[in-house]
């Protein structure tokens, strides 16, 4: 099976309905025994003199999609997965909203859980995506991943 890069970007926040629909779509795949899901949610972190009200995400989209494709292929190679889905927000995502949705499915739990964790790490470290924190007092602050 040859896979091609597919879009991972979603304009604005990722809704819980989208997540539910994605879970529901797997009910026909009856060889799946375990799903592992990671969700990134925007925190209202305190910054000097103010508080984060949203993060505005931008990306080097062509490179990010190519990189996401390479990561997908490597993870499919390493783990025995049935499905893998990655969604990342672009544009403004308010505090409390979801900006990252990573979803792996496998026959057994260990594969799904380990693959999901590795995917999240690689996405955070390797995708050319940037978050700018928009503060309540109208200041801005470029996010730094830890």
């Amino acid at each position, binding site marked *: 099976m040859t896979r091609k890069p597919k879009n991972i970007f979603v304009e604005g926040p990722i809704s819980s309905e989208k997540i539910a629909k994605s879970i529901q779509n797997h009910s026909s795949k009856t060889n799946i025994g375990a799903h592992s899901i990671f969700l990134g949610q925007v925190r209202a972190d305190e910054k000097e003199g103010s508080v984060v009200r949203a993060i505005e995400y931008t990306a080097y989209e062509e490179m990010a999609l190519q990189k996401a494709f390479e990561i997908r292929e490597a993870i499919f190679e390493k783990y025995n997965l049935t499905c893998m889905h990655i969604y990342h927000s672009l544009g403004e995502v308010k505090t409390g909203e979801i900006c990252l949705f990573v979803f792996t499915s496998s026959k057994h739990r260990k594969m799904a859980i380990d693959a999901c964790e590795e995917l999240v790490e690689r*996405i955070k470290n390797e995708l050319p995506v940037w978050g700018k924190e928009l503060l309540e007092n109208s200041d801005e602050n470029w996010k730094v991943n830890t």
Partner: protein
Amino acid sequence: MEGLTVKAFGMIAEKLPEQEFKFPKKENTEELLASLYNEYPNLKDLDFSLAVNQQLIQQNTPLEGDEEIALLPPFSGG
């Protein structure tokens, strides 16, 4: 049109007059960086990596002259 295409992202894009611009052909990425620092001195204070045609590079890399060069500050997705 001849020449390199330079794209800036994240906080780098805010420090340059344009987010995407043409730049004269250079022999390699070291020469390109020297010219960019010369033209935009405030780049020197910023932490960024280079991608040539969407591939991150770690060392000086020869250029044909029509590449897409990206200036990438540390990633902060997710």
